[in-house]
């Protein structure tokens, strides 16, 4: 859909020339004279007391400039943010290094070695002698709830961080009166976000200003919180997110290393650099998912759902990071999916375990919600011997019901779930697929058709208490020559908003896209902002740009009217030129208006000079993209191997600003979602050692592992922002995991296999079939 010449058009990314030539500058590409390098000594134990740390040998090693332990951090650093604060949450303070003498996961940072080269720092870090007394550890979140389980944070006296409940209606009554109840226990395995660029921080204290370059999604939040962590006034801190090589939520955090490197730069008076190794990225950057969900769905014989009961136990890992509790609570909020479920109850329990902390990873609680309800709907269909499509159709929230409030408290803005489903079915030729499936089964071949209809939530705000709520900033500045500079508080790191935001301005002001530059990620250059996460950048950040551009246009019209000696209401414009209606000879060019805007004596009395507007956009409500994903697989019962036959995604993200970029978001999202279904999973041993610690053991999909995609859209604009956009960064991930798993279990239905643990590897399929061999 093309909204205008610029908005909705398939415009090539303006970011690409610097990226494809290797000229883009990421944190690791920064080098300064006199720079020193940091290596971090990390706990090899999941849980232990530190008896002593001996840094003598490390300090004497060649090139070593400083060695810090928790004592140094205690003397120099305040805490790191822990949040978001939710009701009755118990969470320990975090610091850049362990300061209380207890390590709580493999990878917990114990000491930092600073040296003149990276190699010297790493070599010397091996010489730091830490004497640990191992403690019993707890790996499983359910085990952590048991009486007598090892307690991670003694001062809290419990491993429970929080308990939240969501729901409404009368669930007990609904279950008592239902004809059927299906139940399942789902293990949402931990995932490693694995952005291709690991984290990295460079800090320099010079001329009374601390500059921190960090690979982050939220430079403004880092700036505000660093003020407390390094005890420096905020106006003396300058944070820059340079080119950032992917995040997926893993850089939506304020990490200890950001505080540590900044504090070292202050203390040493030299530029300091820390680049995370891939091994560290797997143990010290947050993990995603990690949830055990008990799901019960009650229904009537005709397939109408009567009630839903969910108990979600979230594996938070050792600490609450910036947003940790906000992830599983999303699951409670969104567990009703696309369905009118009158009675629902969800209990969400956040539990500390001796593992790497979890936090937001692409989808952040919505993939878990979608998965549990979409699996339950398939189980219900099987129980009632109904087609999975019909069960869904029967329970969809109808288009006329929007805005629709779920019993769990979410208010869906707009939707037409059946239209997206129908489009996917039509594209797939669903009936023919079912016929083919029946035919192939007779030949001993097992085709599976999986459907997932999802609704998710985007446009979430920042951290309560830190940078405030759900808003974003933008400045649109028309320079005196008519060229336009846009400043955004979002912090894109691959999504392409340097292009889409230029399109918005081009659409509003009529200037060519090439005449607009979009700047982001530098807290000295752009107004205070929130960042890029939760599929919020376009609906919230883009809307800020839209409104700022509108205000610029209004002022330009007033200036033009003044210059043309006409009333503003009589001015018409195509962007390039302002004309008095009915008098085409009386006109002025946009660039002349821009020039005059900076000449105070040319302006109407009382008007401020400049053509430069900053707007902080606050959306009315959150927005809810939706869609249907349909996956066709073939499972080889002899090897357990799953082969993709087709993958169809019909997504509705409201109005589409640039189809090229939207497709890219969906493709990448689907691959991360299908990876959870069949490839990726974090494995720990009983002692809390990570067994999937490299790309050799942790299977990030390669080009050979993924299918071709067939994409389509429906367009249901959101009423909550002027773009009518809903956000698309996570939709693919949310739809894909249940679509793939439903497809595999559909293929295995003749064998009586009802559930399989993700990732559904060939071995797991094969073992399940062996266990059910009687039915073959």
């Amino acid at each position: 859909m093309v909204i205008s010449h610029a908005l909705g058009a398939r415009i090539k990314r303006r970011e690409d020339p610097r990226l494809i030539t290797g000229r883009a500058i990421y944190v690791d590409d920064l080098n300064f004279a006199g720079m020193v390098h940091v290596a971090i000594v990390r706990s090899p134990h999941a849980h232990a007391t530190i008896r002593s740390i001996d840094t003598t040998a490390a300090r004497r090693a060649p090139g070593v400039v400083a060695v810090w332990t928790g004592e140094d951090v205690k003397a120099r650093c305040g805490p790191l943010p822990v949040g978001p604060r939710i009701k009755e949450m118990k969470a320990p303070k975090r610091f850049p290094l362990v300061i209380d003498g207890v390590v709580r996961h493999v990878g917990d940072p114990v000491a930092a070695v600073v040296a003149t080269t990276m190699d010297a720092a790493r070599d010397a870090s091996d010489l730091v002698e830490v004497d640990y007394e191992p403690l019993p550890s707890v790996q499983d979140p359910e085990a952590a709830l048991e009486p007598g389980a090892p307690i991670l944070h003694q001062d809290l006296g419990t491993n429970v961080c929080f308990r939240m409940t969501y729901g409404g209606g009368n669930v007990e009554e609904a279950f008592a009166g239902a004809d059927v109840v299906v139940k399942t226990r789902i293990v949402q395995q931990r995932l490693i976000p694995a952005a291709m660029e690991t984290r990295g921080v460079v800090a320099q204290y010079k001329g009374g200003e601390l500059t921190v370059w960090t690979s982050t999604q939220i430079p403004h939040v880092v700036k505000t919180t660093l003020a407390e962590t390094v005890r420096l006034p905020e106006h003396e801190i300058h944070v820059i997110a340079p080119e950032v090589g992917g995040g997926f939520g893993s850089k939506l955090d304020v990490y200890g290393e950001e505080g540590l490197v900044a504090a070292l730069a202050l203390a040493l008076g030299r530029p300091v650099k820390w680049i995370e190794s891939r091994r560290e990225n797997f143990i010290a950057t947050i993990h995603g998912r990690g949830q055990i969900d008990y799901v019960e769905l009650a229904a009537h014989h005709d397939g109408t759902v009567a009630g839903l009961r969910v108990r979600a136990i979230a594996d938070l890992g050792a600490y609450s990071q910036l947003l940790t509790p906000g992830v599983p609570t999303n699951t409670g909020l969104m567990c009703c999916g696309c369905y009118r479920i009158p009675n629902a109850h969800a209990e969400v329990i956040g539990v500390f375990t001796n593992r790497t902390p979890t936090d937001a990873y692409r989808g952040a609680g919505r993939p878990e919600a979608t998965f549990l309800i979409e699996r339950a709907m398939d189980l219900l269909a099987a129980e009632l011997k109904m087609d999975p499509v019909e069960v869904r159709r029967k329970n969809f929230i109808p288009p006329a019901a929007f805005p629709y409030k779920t019993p769990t408290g979410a208010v869906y803005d707009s939707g037409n779930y059946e239209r997206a489903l129908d489009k996917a079915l039509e594209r797939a030729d669903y009936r023919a697929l079912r016929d083919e499936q029946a035919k192939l089964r007779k030949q001993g071949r097992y085709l599976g058709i999986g459907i997932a209809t999802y609704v998710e939530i985007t446009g979430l705000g920042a951290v309560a208490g830190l940078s405030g709520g759900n808003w974003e900033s933008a400045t649109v500045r028309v320079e005196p020559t008519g060229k336009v500079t846009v400043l955004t508080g979002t912090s894109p790191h691959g999504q392409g908003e340097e292009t889409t935001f230029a399109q918005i301005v081009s659409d509003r002001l009529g200037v060519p896209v090439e005449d607009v530059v979009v700047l982001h990620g530098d807290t000295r250059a752009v107004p205070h902002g929130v960042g890029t996460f939760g599929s919020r950048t376009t609906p919230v950040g883009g809307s800020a740009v839209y409104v700022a551009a509108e205000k610029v246009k209004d002022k330009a019209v007033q200036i033009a009217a003044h210059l043309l000696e006409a009333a503003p209401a009589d001015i018409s414009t195509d962007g390039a030129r302002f004309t008095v209606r009915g008098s085409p000879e009386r006109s002025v060019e946009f660039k002349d208006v821009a020039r005059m805007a900076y000449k105070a004596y040319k302006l109407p009395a009382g008007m401020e000079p400049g053509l430069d507007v900053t707007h902080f956009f606050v959306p009315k409500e959150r927005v809810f993209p939706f869609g249907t994903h349909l996956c066709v697989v073939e499972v080889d019962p002899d090897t357990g191997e799953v082969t993709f036959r087709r993958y169809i995604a019909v997504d509705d993200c409201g109005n589409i600003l640039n189809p090229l970029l939207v497709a890219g978001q969906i493709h990448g999202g689907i691959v991360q979602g299908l990876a959870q279904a069949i490839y990726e999973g974090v494995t720990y041993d009983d002692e809390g050692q990570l067994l999937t610690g490299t790309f050799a053991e942790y299977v990030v999909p390669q080009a050979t592992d993924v299918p071709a995609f067939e994409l389509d859209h429906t367009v249901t604009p959101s009423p909550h922002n002027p773009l009518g956009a809903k956000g698309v960064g996570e939709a693919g991930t949310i739809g894909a995991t249940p679509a793939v798993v439903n497809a595999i279990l559909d293929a295995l239905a003749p064998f009586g296999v009802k559930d399989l643990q993700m990732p559904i590897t060939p071995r797991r399929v094969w073992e399940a079939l062996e266990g059910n061999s009687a039915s073959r």
Partner: protein
Amino acid sequence: MLIKARINDEWREADVWPGASLLFFLRETLGLVGSKNACEQGECGSCSVWLDGELVCSCLVLAAQAHGHEVRTVEALATDDRLHPVQEAFIQTGAVQCGFCTPGLIVAVADLLEHDPRPSETIIREALAGNLCRCTGYAKIIDAVKIAAGRMQK
């Protein structure tokens, strides 16, 4: 030890630690930061370069192995005013997102098309299996390879 190698058609020399990788030599010593360090163990392909015309992970090759040899990096592909057809195709199809894996992929694709000007989709996927991309899902990269192949034959 003193390393002298012909890098992007220019002889360069520098003193490096004997254990230094070619990637370290390129990035830290010569300032050619286009090749990326993403895994340090040859799993991801982000550091792909040519050594005597052969595609290698520069993190797995010692700088010393390049002594007296020819190295080409992503920086050599675009001339002042002209992108390489593979780079053009990546822009056209939207094959770039965060860009971190992209230089390695550009090199790997250019290498593929030098050896096989008309690769099938299966061959393309196999050839790129050594390059991890976490953003794009590969679909647009594969489209870009097909487009570049078509253009380079003309």
